[in-house]
Each structure stands twice: as structure tokens, then as C-alpha cells.
């Protein structure tokens, strides 16, 4: 079994990753993120970004339409709940498969072009999916409200096995374990670890090397006897499956699928997550996803009351000034923070947060380790 052949360094990385995921409720509690819904989002969008990174980080194809795969994943998961069973396993299996199929279709067409033309093609497909899901396809998607469970759903498998949910609306459960709250988080967390492990294998495999070659020089690849199209398509489909799985998990933890998760801004969000964390790195996208979801959920919740508490150690006038300044960036102003953050990251840390960590490490080892601390000089902004 080649599992055991994983390099010791990678095994340690995987173990550390798993430990952080498992202990997240405790580790993230001090920064106010230790509650199940946000942790679920960390894990789910971590998977989404991991998958996106396989396409963008390795092959360099910038897709602006990946939210569409997340969306169809959610829809197929909710339909699985409605038609088959409230068990999350069939739901995420179908979500992954449908995400893969849909991405194979869109990828096959879009990959006939490269560069920004590819980006616009994926954007166009995703926007068409979104617009249709919002309006014309309402019988399948339930439009603006989003696809929801109802008591009268058939749930064939559940009925066949005599599972009766009584008069209440069922929620998904894994053999009796409800998928909300912390059990739901651990289900997502387990999937995240699994996906991280798969990504690690892909990164270290000859296939992964080929994907990086696609990004580096397609011309040389062709003259080296390699067909770039299937490699790019495979990466596209794999990332589409990750997105489908993420969409499925969104539905597992919260059985509602809304059309707006297919909008182009949602596709843009995963690009930002990947770049913020560091595209092409293993851990970066997960960190980026966490950072953005943290901003979205925590910063938007700050109001003047909370700010006043934060600055309560200051004299009253200073406190008021600080609250006035800070409130521009939190609560309803959290978009401003987000925008400014992107600019800062892209300008000063094009390699994302991972590059920041690396520079920090180099700095520290340069100072205390007495090494030359050169590393690889990263290009300054100019």
C-alpha cells in the first residue's frame, strides 16, 4: 500500500493538519471562531479552495466559474435528500459525481481556449447557470428561495427501511448522528483531511508534476510527447469534483441550496481565497478560505456596542474617536476591509500568506540561525 510510502515530512504535515482540524473547536475559540457553523464553513470552503488550487495553482488556468460546480453539488445533494435518503453519504457521493460531470462538460468546451479567453468562457457558463437557476429552472432549483426539504418528500430509501421522521422536518444524519453542530463539523473536517491527503498525493505525483508543467510551458509539453488537453481537463474535473463535494457538504450541514452560491462573485471568492493563502502551495488555500470566512462572519458582526467594549480601556473621547474610525471597517463596512486586504496582500505578498510565513521564518532563522538568510529573493512590487 503506497499510503505508507508517503514521505516522513509529508506524514508529519498531514498529522499536524489532522490535529489542527480535530482540535479546531478549542484552538479557534480564543479568536471567536470556535462555533460549529463557522468551523463547518472553514472546512467546506477549505475543500473548495484545495480543489480550485489543483486547477489554478498547478495548471495556471484561472477559472471564474467554479461556483457553478459548488452550486450543482448543493442542488444534487438536496435532491438526494429529497428523493433517496437523509443519510449524508449518498448525498455527497452524488454531489461529487454531478460536480465532476458538469465540470467535464464545461471544461471540455472552455479548455479549447487559454488565458483570459478561458476565464471568460468559464465565467459565461457559470453566469448562465446562475441566471437560469434563479429564474427559468425554478422547478428544479426553487429559484431565489433556494431548494428546501419538505415533509412530503419521497425519500425512497428511508421509507424502504422503515425510517420515519414523524411530523417534523427531517435533518440529515449519519446513521443516527445529526449533521448539525459539532458532529456536522467533524464530518466536514474528516472530509477536509481526506481531501488534503488526496491533494498531497496529487502534488507529489508525476501527474501533479505534469500539471505544473502545463502552467510552465505548454509548447514544450507538446514537443515532449505529452498531450496537454487531457491533463488540463483532468485537473479541471478533479477541482470540479472537490467543488461538488464542498457544495454537497454545504447541503449536508444545512439542507438548503440557493442560487446565489453560483454567482460570479462566489467564483471570485474562491480565487481570492486561493491567492490570499498562496496559490500553488498545499496549505495556502485552506488558510485563505479560513481567513476570508472569518472576516465575513466575524467582522460583519461587529457593531458600535462591541467596538465600545473593545476600546473601553481608553478615555471616553478617544474611545469615541476610535469607535468612529474602526466602524468604517467592520460591521457594514467589512467589505472595505476585505477590499483593502486584497490590495495589501497582492501588492506586498504576491505569494499570499504562505509567502508571508516563509519570509517571516527566513527572517527569524536569518537573525538567530546566523545563516545567510538569502532564500529566494522575491520580486518586490516594482
Amino acid at each position: 500500500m503506497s499510503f505508507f510510502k508517503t514521505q516522513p515530512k509529508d506524514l508529519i504535515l498531514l498529522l499536524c493538519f489532522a490535529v489542527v482540524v480535530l482540535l479546531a473547536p478549542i484552538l479557534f475559540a480564543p479568536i471567536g471562531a470556535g462555533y460549529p457553523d463557522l468551523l463547518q464553513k472553514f472546512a467546506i470552503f477549505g475543500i473548495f479552495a484545495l480543489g480550485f488550487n489543483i486547477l489554478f495553482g498547478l495548471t495556471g488556468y484561472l477559472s471564474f466559474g467554479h461556483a457553478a460546480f459548488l452550486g450543482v453539488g448543493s442542488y444534487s445533494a438536496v435532491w438526494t435528500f429529497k428523493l433517496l435518503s437523509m443519510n449524508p453519504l449518498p448525498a455527497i457521493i452524488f454531489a461529487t459525481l454531478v460536480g465532476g460531470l458538469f465540470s467535464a462538460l464545461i471544461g471540455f468546451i472552455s479548455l479549447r481556449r487559454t488565458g483570459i479567453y478561458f476565464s471568460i468562457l468559464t465565467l459565461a457558463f457559470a453566469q448562465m447557470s446562475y441566471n437560469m437557476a434563479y429564474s427559468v429552472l425554478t422547478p428544479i432549483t426553487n429559484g431565489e428561495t433556494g431548494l428546501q426539504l419538505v415533509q412530503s418528500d419521497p425519500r425512497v430509501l428511508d421509507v424502504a427501511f422503515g425510517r420515519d421522521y414523524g411530523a417534523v422536518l427531517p435533518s440529515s444524519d449519519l446513521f443516527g448522528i445529526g449533521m448539525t453542530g459539532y458532529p456536522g463539523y467533524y464530518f466536514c473536517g474528516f472530509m477536509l483531511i481526506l481531501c488534503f491527503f488526496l491533494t498531497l498525493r496529487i502534488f507529489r505525483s508525476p501527474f501533479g508534476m505534469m500539471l505544473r508543467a502545463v502552467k510552465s510551458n505548454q509548447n514544450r509539453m507538446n514537443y515532449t510527447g505529452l498531450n496537454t488537453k487531457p491533463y488540463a481537463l483532468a485537473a479541471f474535473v478533479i477541482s470540479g469534483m472537490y467543488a461538488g463535494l464542498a457544495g454537497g457538504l454545504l447541503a449536508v450541514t444545512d439542507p438548503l441550496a440557493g442560487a446565489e452560491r453560483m454567482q460570479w462573485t462566489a467564483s471570485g471568492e474562491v480565487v481570492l481565497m486561493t491567492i490570499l493563502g498562496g496559490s500553488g502551495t498545499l496549505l495556502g488555500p485552506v488558510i485563505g478560505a479560513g481567513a476570508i470566512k472569518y472576516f465575513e462572519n466575524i467582522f460583519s458582526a461587529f457593531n458600535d456596542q462591541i467596538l465600545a467594549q473593545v476600546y473601553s480601556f481608553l478615555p471616553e473621547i478617544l474611545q469615541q474617536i476610535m469607535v468612529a474610525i474602526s466602524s468604517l471597517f467592520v460591521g457594514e463596512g467589512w467589505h472595505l476591509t476585505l477590499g483593502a486586504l486584497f490590495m495589501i496582500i497582492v501588492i506586498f505578498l504576491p505569494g499570499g500568506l504562505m509567502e508571508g510565513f516563509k519570509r517571516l521564518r527566513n527572517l527569524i532563522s536569518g537573525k538567530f540561525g546566523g545563516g545567510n538568510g538569502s532564500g529566494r529573493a522575491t520580486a518586490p512590487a516594482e
Partner: protein
Amino acid sequence: MDAIALQVLNGLDKGGAYALIALGLTIIFGTLGVVNFAHGALFMLGAFCAVSVKALLSLEAVTLDPNKLTAWGTPMEIRVPYVETWFGEFGATLLNYSVPVSILVAIPMMLILGIAMERGLIRFFYKRPHAEQILVTFGLAIVLQEIIKGIFGANPIPQPAPEVAKGMIDFGILVGFDAGNVVYPAWRLIYFLFSVAIIGAVFSFLRFTSFGMVVRAGMADRETVGLLGIDIDRRFTIVFGIAAVVAGLAGAMYTPILSPDYHMGMDFLVLSFVVVVVGGMGSLGGAVAAGFLLGILQSFASMNEVKNILPGIDQIIIYLIAVVVLLVRPRGLMGRKGMMEH
């Protein structure tokens, strides 16, 4: 027939806006090689130039009327615009013409803004990957629109057209329809003519001035022109400013058509990118042609007769065209080889 004529007119005024935004985008791309996701924000800022001009003109002297109370018990305010107290009749006229007047303000404002943007941010991104250009300009767009939201709020702010242009013009008579069949709002026709004029001005500037010729040469082959000892960068900075002015004017003049709000730039951004790509990245003629083409097709797709056959077609037509064009003509309608393909 009159229905089709109306939709063509409608497509032309829509297309005018698309073309103007796309023109700036494609110039920036062709000269600087930068994918500017903040271009929609420039359009929005232009619109808010008009808002600001009107707001300044309608600055009011507030006096309290002790005899009248508001519903919540405070004295009623009496508001009189300063321009009317100072300039009387002329002030009222000025206020009436606030949108056209704002053009005079928008030109220098947008030029300064564009140049500042290029010098302060964009120039550091010439050699960076397109993905990073997209991200940094996208971040800038968010920051700009949030600032506008902070100042002007999230609701649309109506900007009426001057009284003379508020009515309708019987366009049909001019081209042989019966009276009253093809009647169209005057301001929209003005907008179309305005966009044609701006496009014409940009084209002749690039075609007939020596500055423009250097720029066009630089677009075709930057290195060679650089080798001739011409300071291309400084010219390109000005080009960026011009693109910003074009977007800003498009926005300012659009305000009577669409009440501006902070988010209007984003709505136009994706659309104008599709226009640029359909036209061919870096192609000026392509951007203009694609802008009008998409505007007209969008109008046709919105007709009942079409929607009844293909429900929802009006919502996807733009993207559908983009897909078809890119698959049939890989570089868009008038794109050049090798542009943006890696």
C-alpha cells in the same frame, strides 16, 4: 416593424454605454497590458461626479421655521439652494443642467484620478501575472465603491435630465414611420450621439495626432517603439487617464438613464469584459462593434416574441454570444494573434 425599430434604438443607447466602457478597458489592455477590474468603478465614479455636482449646486441654506413642526416635534427646516439665492434665475438653470455641467467637472477629475491610479498602483503591476492584476484592481474597485457607499449611501440617487431633454422625440418620422409609432426618450438619443462623438474623438485622437500614433505603434509593438528612445511609459500614463475620462463621462451622462448607486460599476464590469473579449482583447474597433452588437442583441432577446420561444434567453444572451464567438473566432471579432493567450 416599429417594435423592431424601437429595440434597435434601445440597443444603440445600451450599446453606447457598453462600447464606451469597453473602449477604455481595451485601450488600457492594449497599451499597458493590464486587466483593469476597477474600470467599472471608474464608470461609477464618473456617475458620482454628476451626483456631487448636483449636490454642490443644491447646497441649501437651512433655516428653522419655529411656527411649523415636523412629525417628531422639532422645528421644520426651510431649505433654499445657495445658487438660487446668489444667482437667481441663472442658478436655477444651472441646477437644471447639472448633468451636462458635470461633464466639465468629470473630465479633470477623472483624468487626475486615472493618472493617480496608474502612477500609484497600476504601474507596479505591468509585469505581474494577469491574475494578480485582476485581484489588485478588483480590491481597488471594492474599496472605491465602499467609500462611495460610505459617503452617498446604498440607495440610488436620481439625477434628472435637463427639462428640455426629458421629453420624447418622434424619431420614426425622420426615417419614414407613421407619426407616433417610433417615439423615443430624448436623453437616450442624446446619449447615443454622445457616445458616438466620444468614440469618434478617441479614434481621431489616436489616428491623427502624433501622440496617438506613438501610442498605436506602442500597442502593436512596445519593445520596438521603446528602442526608438520614445518614453512610452509617460504616454501610457496619459492614455490611462484618457481611458478613465471616457469611462467617467460614460458614467456621468448615464445618470439620467440609470439612477446611480455605489454598486453600478460591478454590474457593468462583467458585461464590459465580455464585450472586450467578444470584440477581441486590445482591439479598439472590436470593442466598439461588440458593444453595439451586444446591446442590440440583448434588446432583441428581451422581446416577448423571442422570450416566449426561448424562456430566459434575455438573461443569458450576452454570455451565450460570448461562448459562441470565442469558440468560432478564438480571438474575438477583431482580436490580434497571441494577445492574452498565456
